[in-house]
């Protein structure tokens, strides 16, 4: 290798990084995440607002400021700010003055979280990250009242693509959440060895016995040996999600596992808004391009029309163009690579790409007949 080549490498890497960060990609995933994050913010602010309206705010009981200089609102001003945050969250979700509403939501939630060390929790840290990145991304050009108003006024639609760096950064943060959590358990012998989960379950045995579980299940769940394996399974699950999300081959499996993981956590622990937020964030892993798959339906066939309606209503990530085929044509989906799938496998494929039905439909793609139908050779 020559000295010139060695010297050129950092420049090449920097150029490749700049190209990646500046590459125009669809902001549809972030737009959908913006819509979904509004209710999460309301859920997050609700206990603060409820206490405030009852006349109790953070400074009435133990709290610990991060810094003496941090401005502390009290009384009606504090409650008013929280209410403003709730209004901003609704506006952000609806896409009314989207950029301003998202920035205001982020600022108010951040202000409240940093008021006291006691306000800080992992789920709120994640919420701050999501709001911060939504605030810097142009996520209001679709799925928003702003876009609707532009259309009503006859103004040309704004470009729904933008430099992808906020999306890549949010993907990094999403993976970091699972990765950091999994790694901290992996390097802790008590966690990886099963002591932590075993003790937690044993101490909650009374709660466990209140569940409609057979005795043998309670017995297994409180068995030390079971947790020796279960803890490793949990740790590896988190690490699989963190890593699996990055590759197309494992991404759908990672998303599917992540949903199960969060539903399990929500059922067994109190994690505030973490489960809802984490499941919502999974939409950013969709390939950031839109309408690059074609669904061809026969408008004279009732089943085709029904699927067309489902896709028009639930294709929130704008994966499909729905086209009409001549009467008597089979239902057909053409994937990005040109692979055409027909009949039942096409239905399974379509449903596996809609956010609301994906979790249920993805396992169907493993059925041999569907796999064969989707292989390029079959096309």
């Amino acid at each position, binding site marked *: 290798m020559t000295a010139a080549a060695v010297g050129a490498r950092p420049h090449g890497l*920097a150029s490749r*990084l*700049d190209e990646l*960060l*500046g590459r125009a990609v669809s902001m549809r995933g972030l737009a959908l995440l913006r819509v979904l994050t509004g209710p999460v913010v309301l859920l997050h602010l609700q206990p603060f607002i409820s206490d405030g309206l009852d006349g109790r705010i953070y400074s009435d*009981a*133990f*709290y*610990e400021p991060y810094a003496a200089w941090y401005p502390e609102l009290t009384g009606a001003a504090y409650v008013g700010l929280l209410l403003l945050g709730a209004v901003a969250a609704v506006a952000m979700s609806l896409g009314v003055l989207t950029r301003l509403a998202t920035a205001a939501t982020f600022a108010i939630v951040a202000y409240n979280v940093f008021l006291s*060390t*006691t306000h*800080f929790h*992992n789920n709120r*840290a*994640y919420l701050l*990250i999501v709001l911060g990145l939504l605030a810097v991304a142009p996520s209001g050009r679709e799925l928003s009242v702003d876009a609707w108003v532009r259309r009503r006024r006859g103004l040309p639609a704004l470009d729904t693509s933008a*430099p992808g*760096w906020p999306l*890549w*950064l949010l993907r*990094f*943060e999403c993976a*970091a*959440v699972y990765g*950091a*959590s999994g*790694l*901290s*358990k992996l390097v*802790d012998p*008590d*966690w990886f060895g099963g*002591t*932590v*989960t*075993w*003790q*937690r379950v044993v*101490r909650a045995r009374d709660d466990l016995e209140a569940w409609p579980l057979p005795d043998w299940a309670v017995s297994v769940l409180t068995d030390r040996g079971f947790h020796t394996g279960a803890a490793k399974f949990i740790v590896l699950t988190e690490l699989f999600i963190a890593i699996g999300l990055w590759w197309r081959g494992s991404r759908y499996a990672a998303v599917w596992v992540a949903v199960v993981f969060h539903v399990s956590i929500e059922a067994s*622990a109190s994690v505030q808004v973490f489960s809802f937020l984490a499941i919502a964030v999974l939409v950013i892993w969709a390939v950031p391009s839109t309408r690059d798959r074609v669904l061809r339906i026969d408008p004279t066939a009732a089943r085709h029309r029904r699927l067309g309606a489902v896709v028009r209503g639930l294709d929130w990530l704008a994966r499909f163009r729905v086209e009409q085929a001549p009467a008597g044509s089979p239902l057909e989906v053409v994937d990005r690579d040109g692979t055409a799938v027909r009949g039942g496998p096409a239905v399974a494929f379509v449903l596996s790409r809609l956010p609301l039905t994906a979790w249920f439909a993805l396992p169907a793609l493993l059925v041999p007949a569907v796999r064969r139908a989707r292989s390029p050779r079959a096309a």
Partner: protein
Amino acid sequence: MRRVVVVSVVVLQLGFVARGYWSDHKEFGFQMFPESSTWRADVVRVTADGRRVPVELPWSGYRWDELVQDRGLSYPSVRHHADAGLDNQLAFLDAALDWVADNTPRDRETRYLEASVTAWHNDDPPRRELLRSGVRGGAR
């Protein structure tokens, strides 16, 4: 500029993750359900004349469970799970002692608050620790 922002955020995030291994509060460290550790504490007010009064008894119109409502600290004498780890929990208890000492102006007899903590880190044997608030001025 874009590159600087992205690299800075990535480095900062990795720094926060690393900091989570030694910091009490672990902000942005994302260590979820870190321990099964538990703790309990006998918290008392030590008065100017040397009495040690449990905080479970209301004093000067104050109640501990009204003054300290967050982070599982309302009933310290009951053995609790340390949700975010022992170090985090005891840092909050320590800060709560200081806050109560500083924010109970009607109390003119307490010199300081003291917590005798028994902590069980996962399945390790218990360890004992003494936490004290700052000394209050003007106690009689």
